């Protein structure tokens, strides 16, 4: 496919719609997700918030069809996620897992090039175009100088950045990230969120990100959903979702919120 990165990632008016999604595996006493409604609309950076076990990752897994969805519970571009073949879905949504399961000695560059799979026929090799896209992605997250390193020999943060590069090289209109900055130092946390944010502002990308750092969410995400026990407690613009009341009750922790230069800063105090 001979097209450049920006034209591939251009959003095409696509939404991810979640409708009445309830998930209760056979063994669970109560649902892990119950009656979740939300439309992730394009052009936003949406934070998925909630304490551990509130269903954030499970929601992502449904969108990615890693868990079988009920019929018409998740629609991508108006089409049931179950009706996508993986290759087709992977041209729309890329995924950055919390931890990678990679266990072969591929180099960083080889790992990033894997993301070009959805655009390839059986016998195609890596084209110049693919290499350029991979190189751009590696440069963006600062792993270009690690390109020949063995993926398995990387530190946690370097791995995480490689996975983000891989997702970028997949040139999808959507990226779902599961705690992408948990292993990163503060400089890389801000740098990566900033890169994603800029692409969203340019209209190239839409992002859904699971995060626990409220200050990052406040700074970079314009939309937020707050989950607790599998239910949506609040959703909408970040400012309306992340109120002192809602945050403290969902996270069972008191917060001080301080406004400075038009931005709010969250300081956790005591556990309730």
């Amino acid at each position: 496919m001979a097209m450049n990165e920006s034209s591939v990632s251009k959003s095409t008016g696509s939404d991810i719609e979640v409708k009445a999604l309830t998930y209760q595996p056979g063994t669970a006493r109560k649902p892990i997700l119950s009656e979740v409604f939300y439309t992730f609309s394009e052009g936003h950076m949406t934070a998925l918030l909630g304490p551990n076990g509130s269903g954030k990752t499970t929601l992502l897994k449904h969108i990615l069809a890693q868990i079988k969805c009920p019929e018409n519970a998740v629609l991508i571009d108006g089409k049931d996620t179950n009706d996508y073949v993986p290759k087709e879905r992977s041209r729309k949504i890329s995924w950055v897992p919390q931890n990678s399961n990679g266990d072969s000695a591929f180099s960083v560059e080889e790992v990033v090039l894997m993301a070009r799979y959805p655009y390839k026929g059986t016998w195609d090799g890596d084209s110049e175009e693919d290499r350029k896209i991979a190189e751009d992605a590696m440069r963006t997250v600062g792993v270009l100088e690690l390109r020949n390193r063995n993926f398995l020999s990387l530190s946690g943060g370097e791995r995480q950045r490689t996975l983000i590069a891989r997702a970028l090289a997949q040139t999808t209109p959507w990226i779902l990230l599961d705690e992408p900055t948990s292993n990163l130092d503060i400089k890389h946390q801000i740098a990566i969120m900033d890169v994603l944010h800029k692409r969203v502002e340019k209209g190239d990308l839409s992002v859904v990100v699971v995060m626990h750092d409220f200050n990052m969410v406040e700074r970079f995400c314009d939309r937020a959903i707050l989950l607790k026990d599998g239910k949506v407690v609040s959703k909408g613009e970040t400012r309306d979702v992340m109120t002192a009341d809602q945050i403290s009750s969902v996270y069972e922790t008191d917060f001080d919120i301080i406004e400075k230069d038009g931005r709010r800063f969250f300081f956790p105090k005591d556990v309730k």
Partner: protein
Amino acid sequence: MKKEPLKKSTLTLTGGSLLLLLVIVVIWASAVGAVPVPFAQSARIVLAKLPFVNKEKLLEGIPNANKLIIWNIRLPRVLLAGLVGGGLAAAGVVMQALFRNPLADPQVLGISSGAAFGAAVAIAFGITFTVSGISSIWMFAFAGAMLTMLLVFRVARIATSRSVTGILLAGIACSSMLTAAITLLMMKKRDRLEHIYLWMLGSFSSASWIKVGFMAIVLVGAVLCFTILGRDLDLLSFGDHEAQSMGVSVKRTRTIAVVATSLLVAASVSVSGIIGFVSLIIPHIMRLLVGPKNRRLIPLSLLGGAIFMILCDLISRTAAPPAEVAVGAITQVTGAPFFLYLLWKERRREERD
């Protein structure tokens, strides 16, 4: 571990030298034996089998006996050893990718035990006949392997929805069940004990052109499947979920790979008995040479496995003539120390870096 990216020329060189080595080994192994044939004669006799060559001119002045020995006895045996060795090594690469475990071996599928059980039944009950070059022991072995394969898939599907672990567990269970059954058979029919045991240790002494043809067809089919799936197998090293998020149809890939591997292993074991270690050691060596990409590993392991097996079989028939040493024992005796040496070297390199 900082390393330069693998150059295309290095790959071509590795592949080219292996191919050349394979040709030399085929000719050499055909030359060596109770009746020695000069290398040059052996080369001409082997090459005369290729299409589009002038047979008359090539074979001028070579004694008839030498031609017959090589064509009818040695060459089919050498080629069968090569096909089985290459097949087992390629199957090993795929198994290791599927189970994401460098120690996975086609034997965990239980198919080898199925073949052994089939052969043991034929031997124990004296069912020996031959239909147009196909012996009953071979037939029973292949049937045993195929039935075990179906049983393993069936059990795996009932036992668990997670296909990989399911197949692994079902394979191990079926395998130990069949091994026990073989032991019982051997106890019951003590006079056939040695014959059964020798079959299980593996040998190419019953090689024939029919077996070569059969193995070649299965091998070409399986390797074609493996190569088509090469990139999918690379992505699967990140686990099902990551592979799927990058576009791999995980279920389809697994099914095709497991079925092709099973057929290949069933065919190999049925013509030669159980020969261990090739499927473990060859992929490992090749991985050290050319890295983890399956599209490189599969063809190179195929060549490496073929060379290794031909040499092991050569030792097996020349070490203590006129008796034969079980080829399975030779692959283990030569393979295991080398494997340990490789692990030790790898460790040293890791410590240095």
